[in-house]
């Protein structure tokens, strides 16, 4: 067995570091679009008619049961063919990042909507009624009164979603996206399979660091936001 070379870990770590923005960008993009999709789904579930609620429920249940890698492959291999045969649109040459973004938007939309709905429903209905009764428009009541309170409730779950999304995002290398993980596999194949363990450990450290940063920043945000909440309650 070739001896384990711990000195190679920092070396490859700095080779992987330039690809961190790709990972972060994919994460930010899918969180952003996922929130939009989640908002629509949550709205359908909270205030919608029976049909829209049924559709949203089915979608969320399906996404909950789908392994990310399976959805990634269906989107990456299936969607171009579907578009080509139905609309004649050729999307095969589009950047892989778009497919990755789409996949994780679809996935995170479902979890995001559940978080939004549960945090929205955790806010007392009286808050809304009070806001509307003093003359705020429904939009103002939502935007000024409900949303800030619901955000604080949603933060811990949001942090979890973000971390899970980042971890699932590591699968994008299977369709050839060059993010941290993708670069890692490239380095390994460049070395003809040598130093695989060292490279994986370096990538793991990078992801771990990113997770810790996300966790830390969320706890800071939560502290800040809930401090305001307490002063109102007093």
């Amino acid at each position, binding site marked *: *067995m070739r001896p384990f070379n711990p000195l190679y870990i920092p070396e490859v770590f700095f080779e992987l570091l330039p690809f961190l923005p790709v990972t972060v960008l994919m994460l930010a993009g899918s969180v952003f679009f996922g929130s939009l999709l989640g908002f629509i789904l949550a709205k359908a579930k909270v205030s919608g008619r029976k049909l829209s609620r049924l559709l949203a429920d089915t979608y969320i*249940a*399906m996404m*909950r*049961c*789908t*392994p*990310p*890698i*399976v*959805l990634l*492959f*269906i989107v990456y*291999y*299936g969607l171009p*063919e*579907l578009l*080509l*045969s*139905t609309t004649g649109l050729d999307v095969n040459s589009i950047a892989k990042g778009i497919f990755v973004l789409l996949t994780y938007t679809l996935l995170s939309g479902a979890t995001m909507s559940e978080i939004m709905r549960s945090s929205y429903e955790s806010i007392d209905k009286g808050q809304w009624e009070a806001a509307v009764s003093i003359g705020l428009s429904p939009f103002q009541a939502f935007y000024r009164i409900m949303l800030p309170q619901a955000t604080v409730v949603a933060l811990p779950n949001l942090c979890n979603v973000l*971390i899970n999304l*980042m*971890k*699932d*995002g*590591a*699968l994008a*290398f299977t369709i050839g996206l060059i993010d941290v*993980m993708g670069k890692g596999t490239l380095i390994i194949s460049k070395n003809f399979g040598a130093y*695989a*363990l060292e490279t*994986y*450990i370096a*990538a*793991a450290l990078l*992801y*771990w*660091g*990113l*997770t*810790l940063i996300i966790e830390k920043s969320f706890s800071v945000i939560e502290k800040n936001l809930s401090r305001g909440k307490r002063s109102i309650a007093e």
Partner: protein
Amino acid sequence: MELDIKFMVDTFFLALAGVPATLSITGVALIISTPVAFFMAISRIYDVKIVKQAVTAYVSFIRGTPVVLQILIIYSLLPSLFNTIIKSTGWNINVFDINPIIYAYIVFSLNTCAGLSEIFRSALQTVNKGQLEAALSIGMSPVQAYTRIIIPQALVTAIPNICNLTINLIKGTSLAFMMTVKEVTSIAKIAASYGYNYIEAYLDILIIYIILCSLVQLLFALAEKHLGSYKNIRGTLVNAG
């Protein structure tokens, strides 16, 4: 796009043969990690020195790294490590003949331990401390107090989270194909590679996972109803009185 329906139906039943492997990885991981995770949770609650720090670091690492990476690390580390150990002890076993599902058991057990210990910790903390004190004061041993009083109550709050974890675990086992384990995903992928029918194969996999996860959710809903029944009894008593 035309779906090859015949291929899809054939592959569906072919891939069904991978369900036992998927479920066995899930089951073994849950069975192995339940006791370990329980003691990890206890050590964190009771502030056992060194153990607590080690467990916290371990949970943070597992939580902070993708499962793919854990799989790849274990799969590039363990076989050669086992090989050196076995060679040095002089046994005559070829490590590379071992069924790769063993490595899947190891990876997913390590992974589940971390998640489950967090679930147990939060669930145990929801039980009022007075419950433990009351149990001890009427003469129960700590073990009795835990198995009879604390755990049954903690389990009720833990069940939804355990359900989530199990579903994520089932979804996670789809990555075991990287360790050449023959489970649902890998069987369907291999079948697809003959005729390049990937879409049909992936739709098959999707259907199988949806069925599996729906069944698991149903089972957990039943378990929750059953375990939480003491709450209903108390409720009816209060209502009746």
